[in-house]
């Protein structure tokens, strides 16, 4: 019992560092560790991982706001899509076949993996989109950030705002319907669809995923899924990890972050497709 508390702090630390760097919730890291390695009931694992998502988000966002890494307007604008999607998902549970949804979103992740590998292989490297776009101007979404790895200020714009908005809505819908986190989908919506640079995409996803998770966290808090002896020490570890991760991410090269991101979405994609076909791990 007492030693396992220490273990939860350590697991949290690891998940927090990775989650903050990539802009993903870490549920896909924490849930398997708690269920498979520690033999915990899935109900408590999900409750603990939703708290970890919030801890990652709030811990990392402090640093990303201070260092001007995230895009607050993009976050708030797209947050409407995700939260509406999440509520619709929660209300519509049972109307859709979860098999179909798991396979659909799983294949989407696999397709995104392919896209990201292509981007990694491309000789042009990480290009920054600076063109003009009507929706971007109207919503004043263009911004800039300081890249500590490349030691330069990067001005960026984006495009395909409606596409990103729809993707965010679908990500919210999936998280509501399937009870999965949607951090990876958020990063993909901004990075791949809207052509935002990877670093602000990850930082902005960090900010958004906390708001999305808070919307569903009360459900878990009041239905007894959140165990204080697990979620408490885990949250402390995650907060510390996310604080470290948010600083580490800024000095990493975008290409390195993408190289960590690729195997993780590949793993998630395979996991979701298999789950759709009834194989869970």
């Amino acid at each position, binding site marked *: 019992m007492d030693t396992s508390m220490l273990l939860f702090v350590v697991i949290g630390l690891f998940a927090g560092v990775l989650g903050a760097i990539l802009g993903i919730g870490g549920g896909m890291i924490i849930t398997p560790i708690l269920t498979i390695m520690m033999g915990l009931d899935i109900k408590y694992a999900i409750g603990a991982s939703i708290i970890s998502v*919030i801890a990652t988000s709030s811990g990392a966002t402090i640093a990303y706001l201070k260092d001007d890494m995230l895009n607050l307007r993009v976050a708030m604008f797209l947050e409407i899509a995700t939260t509406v999607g999440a509520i619709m998902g929660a209300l519509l549970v049972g109307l859709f076949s979860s098999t179909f949804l798991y396979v659909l979103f799983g294949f989407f992740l696999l397709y995104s993996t392919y896209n990201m590998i292509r981007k990694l292989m491309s000789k042009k490297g990480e290009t920054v989109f600076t063109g003009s776009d009507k929706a971007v101007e109207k919503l004043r979404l263009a911004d800039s950030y300081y890249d500590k790895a490349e030691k330069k200020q990067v001005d960026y714009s984006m495009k395909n705002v409606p596409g990103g908005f729809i993707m965010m809505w679908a990500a919210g819908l999936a998280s509501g319907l399937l009870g999965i986190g949607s951090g990876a989908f958020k990063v993909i919506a901004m990075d791949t669809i809207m052509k935002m640079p990877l670093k602000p995409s990850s930082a902005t996803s960090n900010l958004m995923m906390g*708001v999305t998770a808070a919307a569903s966290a009360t459900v878990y808090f009041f239905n007894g899924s959140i165990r204080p*002896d697990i979620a408490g020490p885990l949250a402390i570890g995650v907060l510390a990890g996310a604080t470290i991760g948010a600083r580490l991410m800024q000095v990493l090269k975008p290409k390195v972050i993408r190289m960590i991101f690729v195997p993780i979405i590949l793993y998630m994609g395979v996991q979701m497709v298999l789950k759709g076909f009834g194989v869970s791990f």
Partner: protein
Amino acid sequence: MKKEEMRDVELIIGKILRIGVVVSAIVIILGIVLYFVNGGGGYSDGEWPQRFGVMFQGVAQGKSYAVIMLGIFLLILTPVLRVVVSIYAFAKERDVLYVYITTAVLIILIFAMVFGYHG
């Protein structure tokens, strides 16, 4: 809105968020310390507070699990705090469009949270 004004917005939100996170972390750590001091969670096996009434009663009695749950609940509130402060910060910068957008996010979020308490 100019870039410098956006910086002010971000810095205000960052400061308040930091306070929220530090407070919830301190409460959780306090609860964990109480667990070791009291030699247990303060409830019978497999039980912990899941409603406000029980939780606050337990906090008043210095029960470890009640204090940890309070800290976790405060942590759940930090993203809400972030949205509330964003509305104030955008209003301060007279960015009307984003005051509307952020208010919409807050309303949806509160709706979802209340739904969670009753559902």
